[in-house]
């Protein structure tokens, strides 16, 4: 009866007091900060008269490099958001029975942390680097479908924004990043928080699926002359296999999310307790996508390390062929291991034995890669730059993640590790060295290619040491906490448990980690302001084609498409002094795609329709969805053929960076 007395603020049958999340100082602060930031951004852009620039150069662009940068910027922002979530959790568990966050709050935070880190930080960071680098590495002028590429980005961005507003409007999902049923169903979570999960991830997922298709076609069809599959750089190989995995795994998630949406919005019974639903079906579908997803982010990371290690050891990759086969092996195996996430579901010893074996088998190709990296460095001359430091730290840290992974893979032993902090420590030891170290390595490595100046190496070392030490101090204690019975996702623990010292240590670690991230942000700021702009287009003396063109790369990438004769083509071109010169007679007109407003329009419409669907305002959502169809129809009648870059312009641009005509500029920095 209390309900009748409490104030209901309903205008247009919307309950506004539920719509905005109120009553929490943290959230109120964020709401104010968000509004102020938005006002500030709008005012700033207007004052600097940058709207037109923003629109024509960025928001409507179809240039793979700019799309890549937008992905990376979004990913850094999401890293900040996810990292704040991580810090809040560490603060809450720093001492027993802390009252900093209540359980509802903690639940929302680990859920959004997991989703954001994996889907809105790791994925876009890697896809961003793929976007920037892959067409350059294969000597192409863009991806196969530039406009689709822009659409991918805007759908991802739209999904990410929709997911992120949930904590100030409507309430965040709170059933874990795995969103297990029946908990995530309406029976146990009647708030709309988990609608955000279902709808936002669906929108972003469609974008990712398109990226997968786009990169498969790009890599298969657009490689420059002479670059056979077995002459592709390793990052291209891993991107290719990752794209195949995306196309294989994401449709499963799409279907699972659709069923989840039906269950939550329309009362179907796929996963519910009542009405004959099957909760185990969700767990299976989720991990059928979820495990490959882990490799979707890990494989490109392996590719980045391969490039960085080879470049800074001044040697070609050891065991290239076995590297390729191990990637393929990992990809195949990753589709048949999903049950290791729920050995404890009681599927019986035969099933658990099978999946224990397939899971442990993944260690074999992974081990092969590890030794190949080590032997790439052997007999090399290892230059310990910032980028290389990340690759070096990756080796021991990832080995710890790997061996604990094998321990978890042993079904019977997992009965003791399952859902404990041992598991949480393990997957952070895989994801942080495997993905975060990789994107940092990639960023330091390709930054000069993207922007024409380097990130500061000295600040980079501070960034590195703080981050790596902080990471180990944060997550190492969690192994021991888990073995002593500390479970995951618990917002607090008792003083008698004896967990307090290690939790405290871990919390201190997370502060060091955060300091590392802050130094990283400072490094970007410092380098934008002060870094030397007058650098070589090949500052690392690197080996692959992206370094054979200007930095920052001219919009058409290559004036002349290169011919490739071997692995590490640019290295050999430099050695033999072949193909480095551009003759006037070789310059031809270049055909490039035009900008388009449709991708961002689709992103906005998807976002609006998704938002309305989340709030279960079905008619409004359906009306908004008409806008999606309108976009599709407009696109079908779009006959824009792109434009041609005139010879004069190419001549001018090439002269500017090649210093003297007919001669390439000094490549050794």
């Amino acid at each position, binding site marked *: *009866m*209390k*309900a009748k007395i409490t104030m209901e603020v309903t205008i247009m049958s919307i*309950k506004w007091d539920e*719509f905005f999340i*109120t009553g929490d100082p943290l959230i109120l602060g964020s709401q104010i900060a968000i509004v102020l930031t938005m006002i500030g951004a709008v005012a700033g852009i207007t004052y600097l008269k940058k709207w037109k620039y923003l629109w024509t150069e960025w928001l409507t662009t179809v240039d793979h490099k700019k799309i890549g940068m937008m992905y990376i910027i979004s990913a850094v922002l999401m890293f900040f958001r996810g990292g704040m979530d991580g810090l809040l959790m560490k603060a809450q568990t720093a001492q027993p029975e802390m009252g900093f966050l209540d359980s509802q709050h903690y639940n*929302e935070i680990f859920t959004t942390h997991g989703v954001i880190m994996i889907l809105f930080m790791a994925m876009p960071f890697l896809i961003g680097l793929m976007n920037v680098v892959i067409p350059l590495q294969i000597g192409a002028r863009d991806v196969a479908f530039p406009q689709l590429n822009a659409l991918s980005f805007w759908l991802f961005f739209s999904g990410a924004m929709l997911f992120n507003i949930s904590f100030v409007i*409507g*309430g965040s999902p709170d059933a874990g990043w795995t969103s*297990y049923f*029946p*908990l995530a169903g*309406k*029976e146990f979570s*009647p*708030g709309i928080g988990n609608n955000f999960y279902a709808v936002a991830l669906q929108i972003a997922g469609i974008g990712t699926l398109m990226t997968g298709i786009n990169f498969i076609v790009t890599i298969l069809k657009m490689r420059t002359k002479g670059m056979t599959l077995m002459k592709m750089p390793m990052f291209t190989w891993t991107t290719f296999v990752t794209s195949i995995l995306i196309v294989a795994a994401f449709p499963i998630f799409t279907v699972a999310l659709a069923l989840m949406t039906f269950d939550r919005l329309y*009362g179907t019974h796929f996963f*519910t*307790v009542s*009405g004959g639903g099957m*909760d185990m079906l969700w767990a299976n579908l989720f991990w059928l996508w979820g495990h490959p997803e882990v490799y979707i982010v890990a494989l490109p990371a392996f590719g980045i390390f391969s490039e960085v290690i080879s470049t800074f050891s001044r*040697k070609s990759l*050891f*065991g290239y*062929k076995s590297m390729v086969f191990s990637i393929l092996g990992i990809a195949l195996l990753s589709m048949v291991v999903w049950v290791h996430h729920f050995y*404890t*579901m*009681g599927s019986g*010893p035969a099933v658990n*034995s099978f999946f*224990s*074996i397939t899971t442990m088998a993944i*260690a*074999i190709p992974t081990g*092969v890669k*590890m030794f*190949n990296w*080590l*032997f790439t*460095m052997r*007999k*090399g*001359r*290892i230059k310990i730059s910032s980028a290389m430091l990340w690759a070096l730290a990756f080796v021991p840290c990832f080995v710890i993640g790997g*061996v604990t992974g*094998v321990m978890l893979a*042993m*079904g*019977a*032993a997992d*009965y003791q590790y*399952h*859902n404990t902090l041992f598991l949480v420590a393990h997957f952070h030891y895989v994801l942080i060295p495997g993905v975060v170290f990789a994107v940092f390595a990639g960023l330091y490595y390709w930054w000069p290619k993207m922007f024409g100046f380097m990130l500061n190496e000295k600040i980079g070392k501070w960034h590195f040491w703080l981050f790596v030490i902080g990471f180990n101090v944060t997550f190492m204690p969690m192994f*021991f906490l888990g*073995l*002593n019975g500390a479970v*995951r996702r*618990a*917002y607090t623990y008792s003083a008698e448990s004896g967990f307090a010292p290690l939790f405290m240590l871990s919390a201190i670690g997370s502060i060091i980690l955060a300091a590392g991230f802050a130094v990283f942000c400072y490094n970007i700021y410092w380098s934008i302001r002060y870094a030397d702009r007058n650098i070589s287009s090949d500052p690392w003396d690197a080996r692959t084609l992206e370094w054979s063109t200007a930095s920052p790369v001219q919009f058409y990438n290559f004036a002349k498409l290169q011919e490739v004769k071997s692995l590490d083509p640019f290295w050999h071109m430099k050695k033999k002094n072949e193909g480095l010169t551009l003759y006037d007679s070789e310059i031809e007109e270049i055909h490039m795609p035009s900008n388009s407003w449709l991708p961002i329009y689709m992103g906005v419409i998807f976002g609006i329709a998704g938002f309305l669907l989340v709030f*279960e305002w079905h008619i409004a959502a359906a009306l908004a969805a008409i806008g999606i169809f309108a976009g599709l129809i407009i696109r079908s009648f779009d006959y824009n053929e792109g434009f041609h870059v005139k010879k004069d312009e190419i001549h001018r641009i090439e002269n500017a960076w090649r210093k003297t005509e007919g001669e390439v500029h000094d490549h050794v920095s």
Partner: protein
Amino acid sequence: MKKILLSLTALLPLLVLSGCNMVVFEPQGPVARSITDLINWSLIWMLLVVVVVFGLFGYIVWKYRERPENKDYEPPEEHGSTLLEIIWTGIPILIVIALTIPTVKTLYALEEAPKGYEEKEPITIHVTSADWKWIFSYPEQGIETVNYVNIPEDTPVLFKMTSASTMQSFWVPALGGQKYTMPKMETEMYLVADNPGSYDGQNTNFNGRGYADMKFEVLAQTDEKFNEWLADVKETAPKLTESEYDDLLKPTHMGRLTFSNTHLEWVNHADPHSKAYTNPELYRGHGYQGKTFEEEDNYKSNQPNVMENHGQGGHDESEDNHGGDHNEH
């Protein structure tokens, strides 16, 4: 050879983790011990891997780092070595085999009463997890407890587990591994306690607001004490009624309860056709509230339970106080 290694494993936890006593390394029963043995066996191999890779890594990075002296050194062209690659494919395969065999053996062994206890008649206890409490029913003894379970020492206990709400996980780390409890399904697990003592148990599978406190105590007793306790409960504990049981299943925290009958008399949640007691109104709270759906077989229904000779639901009369107090944040 294997024996020597195995006996070494006993030392490992002491060596590696000296100083900290962790529950997983201090098994208090044969089931937990078999898992700990497996973990120790894997630790040896993993330690070997770590030592080899770290050693190689340190050596290579140190030896081949760039120094002023080797500025002019140009590394050789080198594409791989079939022999080396076969070696480092082969050795991991052997390690995986060495780990697989005991893993599979243990997986099968854990499904049955532990070795050496086959003779002893196991006692069966039904576990029903609810939000956010554990209900233990002793059908043979006709008693029921909430949030604690007493067992006789040295006797295999067969837990038959199900859930009255979401998917949860039953874990007593000192005595054995864990397994999920799921609505309308039954999972089984054997545990044995070597000695009398109190062991912590808890849910490990996240199930909403009250998850962190969903704990219980396992008290292992001598046969004598256990029987005394049984008799005492039979004599003094109250009977559980259906409407009390409905209240019990609501999402709450509570202390310990004891009854001299079991809810299995009218519902076994493991039965695929049993009624669902879900009631979304009780879970309203944070944020904007969505539409919920009336189900044929949940709390509102008047359908009889499928359990035999129980013809009357009687769960709907107490529902009027549930109506959406969800504006209260």
